């Protein structure tokens, strides 16, 4: 999985591309962890380029939310493909994340 990063005002936007699964979950957690250490904790995770997510990927999103939440931050998701959105709905995790159509709208919501 590839992660590109862009800072928009005080919001960090992470653009994910590929599969968010057992092999790549650690990569996202490490990225969020390093941003957290710099107190950059308002995050948008743009998943327009993610065509597959499994429970490990879901876990990395939950972990990321817990990491930033402890210091007053938040994780919002954007650009979910239909099948990825269906997994969040199946597991009811769509209830804990703000979900937006695109990263710009998500960033503006902070």
């Amino acid at each position: 999985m590839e992660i590109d990063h862009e800072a928009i005002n005080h919001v960090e936007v992470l653009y994910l591309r590929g599969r968010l699964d057992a092999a790549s979950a650690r990569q996202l957690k490490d990225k969020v962890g390093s941003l957290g250490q710099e107190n950059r904790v308002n995050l948008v995770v743009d998943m327009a380029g993610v065509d597959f997510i499994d429970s490990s990927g879901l876990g990395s999103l939950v972990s990321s939310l817990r990491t930033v939440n402890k210091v007053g931050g938040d994780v919002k998701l954007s650009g979910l493909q239909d099948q990825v959105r269906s997994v969040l709905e199946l597991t009811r995790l769509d209830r804990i994340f703000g979900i937006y159509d695109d990263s710009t709208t998500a960033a503006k919501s902070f």
Partner: protein
Amino acid sequence: MDPKCVTFIIDSDVKNVPLVGMSVNRLCRAASYSALDAFNIELCVVEAVTNSIRHCYGGKGGHEVTVILTLTNREIVVDVCDVGPPISPGVLEGAVIQGPPGDVADIENIPERGRGLGIIRKIMDSVAYRSEDGKNCLTLRKRLPTKEKASA
């Protein structure tokens, strides 16, 4: 139609799991499952294979996970097999998707892991587990789409 069968054998490295997942997805699409159904079956197979690697082999490479996909005229059957310690009795039956707590602001109590078997049970029509002579197999079944749904 005579049953059609294909077997995948991968080394127990999570980096190999997408190879099986994407192949299963493609085969499901060829069997007229919708894109969403094919994705969901891929997801279940990925969950099962990842569970094998993590729980049977401790996440270590150097072992084999075997995935046998059988397509009949009624259903698809996927056996995910490993060799090692079996899962504890009752784990499968007790697997449910642990959703967020009633108070979704209580982020700390939302589990990070443990959704895999619950996802499988929710998506597949049936899930069974057997362990014999040190070989363990998780069998997933899903009915083929009816003709009127097949075009989606």
